[in-house]
């Protein structure tokens, strides 16, 4: 059983901590991870349901951010005021002449 314990310890040192895994999962969305980073992160995610959730939620955030821009442009609360509309029209008229 000595070999098993050694295997677990070795895997343990290869796997990042949760704190490191949250950073790695975020960075994986912005850059290519190195081979060891990727390997360690995969290993960690097999073992840790919190970090798996975290990753799923980050991917949801990316999707929501895009949807939000769509939603805000259509139904956002801050519309163009009548005065601002007039100001822009006048500037454009001046630009046309």
């Amino acid at each position, binding site marked *: 059983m000595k070999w098993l314990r050694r295997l677990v310890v070795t895997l343990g040192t290869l796997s990042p*901590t*949760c*704190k490191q895994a949250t950073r790695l999962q975020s960075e994986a969305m912005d850059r290519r991870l190195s081979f060891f980073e990727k390997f360690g992160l995969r290993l960690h995610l097999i073992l840790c349901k919190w970090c798996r959730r975290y990753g799923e939620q*980050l991917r949801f*955030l990316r999707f929501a*951010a895009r949807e939000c*821009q769509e939603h805000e442009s259509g139904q956002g609360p801050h519309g163009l005021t009548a005065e601002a*509309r007039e100001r822009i029209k006048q500037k*454009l008229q001046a630009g046309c002449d």
Partner: protein
Amino acid sequence: MEPDRESTTSQALAKENAKATPGLSDPERWVEVYGDYLFKYAMARLRDPTHAEDAVQETFLAALKGGKAFAGLAAERSWLVGILKNKIFDHYRRACRETLFTDLEFYSDEESGRFVAEGAFKGAWIHDLGPKQWPNPGESLDKEEFWQTYRDCSGKLPRNVAAVFNLREVDDLDSKRICRMLNISESNLWVMLHRARMALRRCLEINWFGKAGEAL
């Protein structure tokens, strides 16, 4: 059959266009038809009515110069949105010349409180503070209250951090391009994105998904 259908579609588009142009010149019509949409788009990104108004105005002025004809409102609108995006990027470029864009102070302490600080489990989630299960996140996107919460949470991010987050997530610009635009280093960018995601995730969990879970 095909040509018929096509001509019906273009007739419909022409009608749609005619409805939107009751005797207005092009620029005036633009302001009437797209002004509100573009302004809201810019507000979501710049969070300041004066800057948003400037960006919309610059967009229309640039559109006037590059005047094109479009078959339909949708194509014209996406053309204008494309110009507006570039005006928003210009705004960020100017802003980063005036102040340092990097914001690493933000939430740097708060995140460490969620992980075990000492001992064999150092760096692991403190289980009660770890990510919770989110019930049906996809369904939330249909609810106005969700967007209200999202708006509040994103509004709590420092302006620079929110700008960086949206350039990456909404505009899908790669790291190198964002760094060139804002004159920041890649490692700083990644730290900012990491903290932005962490903060947004947490805020939505507390103020939306946590509450939705209680209601179920």
